[in-house]
């Protein structure tokens, strides 16, 4: 598509501002409430999206989707509760910043990184769509197994202070994620006889329990989130502007992390959570001050937020290019496209190229509209951290439990959320990373499916996992990730003893 065509498409997408603005507002609000992720919200609004023309419906859904990823970072920073799985990595440095009374700065970093990442990746995708779509073809079940194990090992190595505890948390998550009917014979496993667990562990109650309920229980131990001494957190307009402009000094990290997110997003199933942790690790590796990560470091907020917004564009690429949805929101969009009789994959580009490129352009326009939300969100939202915990903790539990109920309308999901809340509380108190447990629960079923598929293809030969070049490279990276921390510790010990220089 040439520049003139893109300009025309931009104006056409911008003319749908009346659909984009409410979608952005709903998306930010819903993204900030754990459980009301983009796909749930779109499902709730499905009758509305089916009633209007397909281009309006897609614009609305895409804007809502992008905004929900931006919104997911808000509770991650302010309350240590990621609104979406992709924001789990943001808690690592975002929440410590809030505790230090720098909530508005953390929000400014998060919003600028999210919006910049969205603008960059949607612009890149518009030009590279046909090439990016090829990435998905190289990732088969064998590579997916290694990608997921690599992602989990990375999370364990990064997020947890104690690597072995991080790995145990991840493995426990995988084990819990493998609960439910098996993929071949549909016979229930490890469900304790509960019918509600037949389909596996529901993700939203797990997320709400691990993060929201456990955090609420821990909140009761202190009066407010921000330290009393640093509770003057409402910045002036000038300070807000300075914080927003200050965020741009991380422009290189934003570009790098967003492109990383885009590429990871293109791989079906990899998702925002892995992308955010990979970006976090990359930022730490190349940082001049890696020791500050985890203590409220600016780069620790920028990298995951840029990456998870880069993923939003990436997950739509396989849907548009090859007709395979890259994530749950893309799957819901696929339903709407199907309802309107729109073809997928290469046929979409032949029959309706305006619609195909229009989806990405709508994303670009939605991020432009989001720029206007920067100021009020950054300035006012940070006040949450000085609200007394005797208000916050009961409210978090009461309202997130509604979120746990929404996706399946099962009352049992409330009990599951509370059970995960207790697991999360014990894990937090004893140094097991809850993000690693959650990512394990998310990846468990996907890992199992890819594992079984690979084993079936190979006739039960486990060597199949070492049969591809991409897979082998990832195995090496996995081994390097696992060995890096103990090796560095050993080297430091030897250096301290004076054995090496």
């Amino acid at each position, binding site marked *: 598509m040439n520049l003139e065509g893109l300009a025309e498409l931009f104006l056409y997408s911008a003319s749908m501002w009346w659909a984009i603005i409410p979608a952005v507002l709903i998306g930010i609000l819903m993204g900030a409430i754990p459980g009301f992720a983009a796909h749930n919200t779109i499902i709730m609004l499905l009758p509305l999206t089916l009633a209007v023309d397909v281009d309006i419906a897609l614009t609305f859904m895409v804007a809502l989707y992008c905004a929900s990823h931006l919104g997911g970072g808000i509770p991650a920073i302010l309350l240590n509760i990621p609104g979406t799985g992709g924001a789990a990595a943001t808690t690592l440095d975002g929440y410590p910043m809030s505790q230090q009374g720098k909530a508005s700065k953390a929000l400014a970093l998060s919003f600028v990184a999210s919006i910049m990442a969205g603008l960059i990746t949607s612009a890149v995708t518009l030009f590279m769509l046909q090439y990016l779509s090829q990435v998905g073809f190289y990732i088969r079940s064998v590579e997916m197994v290694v990608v997921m194990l690599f992602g989990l090992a990375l999370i364990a190595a990064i997020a947890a202070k104690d690597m072995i505890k991080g790995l*145990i948390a991840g493995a426990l998550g995988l084990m819990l994620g493998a609960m439910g009917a098996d993929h*071949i014979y549909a016979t229930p*496993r*490890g469900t304790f006889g509960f019918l509600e667990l037949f389909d596996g562990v529901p993700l939203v109650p797990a997320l709400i329990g691990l993060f929201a309920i456990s955090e609420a229980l821990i909140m009761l131990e202190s*009066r407010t989130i921000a330290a009393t001494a640093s509770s003057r957190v409402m910045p002036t307009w000038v300070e807000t502007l300075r914080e927003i402009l200050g965020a741009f000094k991380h422009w290189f990290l934003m570009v790098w992390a967003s492109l990383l997110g885009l590429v990871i997003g293109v791989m079906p199933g990899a998702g925002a959570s892995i992308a955010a942790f990979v970006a976090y690790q990359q930022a730490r590796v190349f940082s001049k001050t890696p020791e500050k990560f985890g203590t409220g470091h600016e780069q620790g907020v920028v990298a995951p937020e840029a990456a998870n917004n880069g993923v939003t564009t990436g997950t739509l690429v396989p849907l548009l290019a090859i007709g395979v949805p890259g994530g749950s929101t893309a799957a819901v969009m696929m339903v709407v496209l199907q309802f309107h009789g729109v073809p997928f994959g290469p046929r979409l580009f032949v029959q309706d190229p305006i619609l195909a490129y229009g989806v990405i352009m709508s994303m670009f326009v939605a991020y432009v509209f989001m720029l206007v939300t920067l100021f009020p969100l950054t300035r006012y939202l940070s006040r949450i951290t000085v609200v007394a915990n005797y208000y916050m903790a*009961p409210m978090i539990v009461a309202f997130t439990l*509604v979120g746990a109920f929404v996706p399946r309308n099962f009352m049992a999901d409330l009990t599951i959320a509370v059970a995960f809340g207790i697991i999360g509380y014990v894990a937090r108190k004893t140094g097991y990373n809850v993000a690693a447990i959650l990512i394990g629960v998310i990846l468990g079923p996907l890992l*199992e499916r890819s*594992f079984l598929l690979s084993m079936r293809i190979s006739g039960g030969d486990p060597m199949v996992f070492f049969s591809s070049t991409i897979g082998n490279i990832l195995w090496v990276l996995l081994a390097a990730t696992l060995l890096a921390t103990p090796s560095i510790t050993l080297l430091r010990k030897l250096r301290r003893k004076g054995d090496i220089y």
Partner: protein
Amino acid sequence: MSDDKSPDRKQVGSDLIIPVAGICYAIYYVYSVWEFPAEAQRSGFFLAGLLLTLCLLLFARIAVQMAQGRVDWEFTALLGPSEGRLRRLGFVALIAAYLLTVRTLGFTLTTFSFLFIGSMLAGLQSVRRAAVFAATAAIAGWLFFIVLLGTRFPLGPFEALVAQLVSLWK
């Protein structure tokens, strides 16, 4: 007397809860797939084996630290600071009560009761402020989740009363 406050000594005890619970679940999981055909057992065995190996590594590390006398046993860290511990346990009991009553009382009344008692348990001193806070949040939650979003959360006497009033008004 041992030096309990030494920074080199590790507090161990409550951090064994997660691995022990994990091992118990892994054993139960393997038991649940024991009768399955070999093909369907593989992933379960793989995941259970992975978890078991990692837990054994942790136990081995603790055993070495114990042998070196660098370990202190404790279980109190799990419950947080002793101040307000009873109130926090009361809050957990309140969550359990919420789960038991929400089907009968419905969203609004259960949320009101939960927020009212919960905020008092969490340290709010004024009964009037707790009541105003609980009523405002419960009504706002009802308007947002039930009226606006139309979630199918259980309805109770409050929602029935509102529905009746609306039908009378119409």
